[in-house]
């Protein structure tokens, strides 16, 4: 339980410190906005597509980082 909470908490704290990976959300937003504009015409559709794309990108990255943190905090020490 402690380990499960520690990993995402470390991740969030790390992002708040604006470490290297803290710059991923803005660059992912830029990528989502431009690629969505290239796939849609109307601005509401562009923004909806961009929001969805950004959440998918960030969700995937966060899930990956949490998994890696869990691996290093739990699996590797054993």
């Amino acid at each position: 339980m402690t380990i499960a909470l520690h990993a995402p908490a470390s991740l969030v704290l790390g992002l708040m410190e604006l470490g290297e990976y803290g710059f991923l959300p803005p660059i992912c937003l830029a990528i989502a906005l431009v690629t969505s504009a290239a796939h849609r015409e109307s601005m509401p559709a562009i923004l909806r597509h961009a929001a969805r794309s950004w959440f998918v990108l960030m969700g995937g990255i966060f899930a990956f980082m949490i998994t890696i943190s869990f691996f290093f905090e739990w699996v590797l020490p054993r």
Partner: protein
Amino acid sequence: METGQEHPSAPTPLPDSDPQRDAQDAGKDGRLTGKERLFRFLLGGGLVAIGCSGFLLSKAYDPANRAGVLAIAAVVIGMIYLGQAVRGRVEGPVHREEEEPTGPPIPVEKMSLGVFLGWLIPGAGHWMVGRRAKAILYFATISATFWIGVALAHGRNLNYDRDSVYFYAYVFNGVQTLIGWFATRNLELDHAIRFLQVGYLYAAVAALLNLVAMMDFVATCLRSHEQRIHGRTAPDTDREATSPLEGEGSSFAHDRPPADKSGASANRPGASTDKSGPSSRNEPGAITS
């Protein structure tokens, strides 16, 4: 309306609905067949496994190691495929042809000029042909990302001699790269810069996104040309002309085919662009991307 409904409370089928045809359309309209779901599950799982393995085995967890970005990309793409396999459908093909054109028709002859202008200034090509909202979005996003990258690197990233690989990407940003290079050409890497690599990444990604914007302009021109051929134009009877193309002296203004006011027109896109729509998106000549 179908005749011979079996139950009085059964929903009235849409005029164009056909359950048998819909069943045959499995695999179209974003729906995946069983084999497709299995393929995406295996592909997504493989990408996630490869990404995780590469990330760990190559010590790419060090944020300074650029290979970690590739590993993250593999994992993210793999998870997208896994998500599609679980949902049983993908996001449908780009439904741009179902959306109302947001500007006047674009003559294909203007395409080269628009691409060049878009290379010089992000969004300039779209602004030229009346797509003002997209032009502003492209310009604001790409410019902000680029100059934030320059600021993070303290201006030391726009140097061909120091890192030529990134400079090849910067070329796609035209005037802004030129201005930045000229302003920072005499700066030396004389102190440690914590976010130097982040600055490289931001500026390079911004310039490559301008390449995406230019390709979107080409696609917009070609799609507009197709829409003209099929008689679909922007509803501009209650809009002022927003582009020189509609000006009084423009030969193009007299060349627009009449708007199709037929209520049964299958070409008229609906308001929603994110739902599976009728088969009009598969009509011949429609450009998808």
